[in-house]
């Protein structure tokens, strides 16, 4: 064993500060003249304190993917241990952020459709969508099964947040409006898009006791209704208060390129439905 080798095997003890002071001084003299030993000792001198501070968590296996998903939802049974791990593991933290983002409005995606005034839905737009359009979604599922003969190759209907994530559901965000103010938004639908999500900021009457129903529809240029839905005001109010928007899923298959009027409002005293909310959506069809 050479002199250099003898120094090398003592480097762990030097890094761990377990050498006697005389031996440590001799080691430091060697390090001053030996680049290789100095680099290793210097790197590990920085690593060891972090190792001690990180402790056992640095040696743990990563939690399973679904455990991190549950943790993001606050449903993990091992939350303390998972939280400790996530705190020290960047990749797991990133996974948790991904799962958490699926319960939020996916602001990055929505931002692209913001109005010039800068309004944007704050949080949980997709949970609102999921809650409000469950009936529409079920109807669409049945409808889509009939519309698409290649359903076996395509994904089954997924909740809006999943559909949006995979790019399958374009969305259009409609700002707060009053009748006739000419709000117009454009959206492009591809052949593979199975639904269009309309997120509208709709003012509801002040009276919290109102239990009426609302009707919304989408009419083409000829005034023919291509889609409609009815919602009760209590459900709408709860979701609007939580999310500031009401979301609707419209089957994309029923929308050819063209101008559509999205309108709706409460059940009027006359027996019909008011259309106090009105906006124009211009649909274009992408080639592929």
């Amino acid at each position: 064993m050479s002199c250099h080798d003898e120094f090398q095997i003592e480097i762990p003890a030097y890094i761990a500060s377990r050498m006697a002071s005389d031996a440590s001084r001799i080691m430091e003299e060697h390090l001053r003249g030996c680049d290789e030993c100095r680099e290793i000792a210097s790197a590990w001198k920085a690593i060891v304190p972090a190792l001690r501070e990180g402790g056992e968590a640095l040696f743990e296996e990563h939690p399973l993917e679904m455990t991190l998903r549950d943790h993001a939802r606050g449903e993990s049974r091992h939350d303390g241990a998972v939280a400790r791990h996530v705190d020290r593991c960047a990749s797991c933290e990133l996974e948790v952020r991904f799962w958490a983002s699926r319960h939020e409005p996916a602001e990055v995606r929505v931002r692209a459709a913001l109005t010039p005034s800068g309004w944007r839905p704050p949080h949980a737009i997709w949970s609102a969508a999921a809650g409000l359009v469950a009936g529409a979604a079920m109807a669409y599922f049945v409808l889509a099964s009939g519309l698409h003969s290649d359903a076996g190759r395509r994904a089954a209907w997924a909740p809006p947040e999943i559909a949006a994530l995979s790019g399958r559901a374009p969305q259009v965000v409609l700002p707060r409006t009053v009748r006739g103010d000419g709000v117009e938004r454009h959206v492009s639908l591809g052949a593979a898009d199975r639904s269009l999500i309309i997120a509208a900021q709709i003012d509801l009457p002040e009276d919290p006791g109102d239990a009426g129903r609302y009707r919304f529809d989408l009419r083409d240029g000829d005034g023919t209704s291509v889609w409609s839905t009815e919602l009760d005001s209590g459900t709408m109010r709860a979701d609007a208060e939580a999310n500031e928007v009401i979301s609707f899923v419209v089957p994309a298959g029923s929308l050819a390129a063209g101008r559509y009027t999205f309108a709706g409002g409460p059940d009027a005293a006359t027996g019909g439905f008011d259309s106090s909310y009105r906006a124009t959506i211009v649909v274009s069809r992408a080639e592929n």
Partner: protein
Amino acid sequence: MTIRGGATLAYARNSIEQRLLEDEPQALGQVVRWISVVLTAPRFWPLRAEWADLQQETLMRIISSLRQERFDPSRDFRAYAQGVARYTALQAFGRKRHDAFEIAGDDLPSPAAGPEERAIQHQLVRRIFEQISEPCRELVRLYFLDEQDYEEIAGRLSLPQGTIKSRLFRCLQAAHRSLHRKALSCERMASTE
């Protein structure tokens, strides 16, 4: 179904590609993990403020590619997905013209650094331990974390003390080389941008 180069490209039922297209959570979780591991590699630490966006961008690209059947199912999907993640991160580097060496190799933040730097230290240390062999991990753990001495470790592993000492040093050396290779790989990446 797309025919390309005479081959039929379709994703087998229950394959991860098909399950990802169907938004099956476990498949999604698996792919998100692959992406996350790449994006949080030390070389991409300068991009950490953008990780979540890059993660989404990568996932979108992968799904878009699958939907257009551009991915050949005979290839390794994990390698492909991680390649897309690396490419996406490198593009982000290009956009930022950021210094890839901000956190590289043995330039670890000092122990007296703030919370952010300490978090980085923890991540890097974890990465180092993931890259060294299991026997090395065990040795490092016993010596530095459990603070056992050579005699105790030798007794535990039924090996001579001299062997333990030389093995432990070789483990430190191997980890250091691994860090160094990463730094060089960063340098190459930066120079090709």
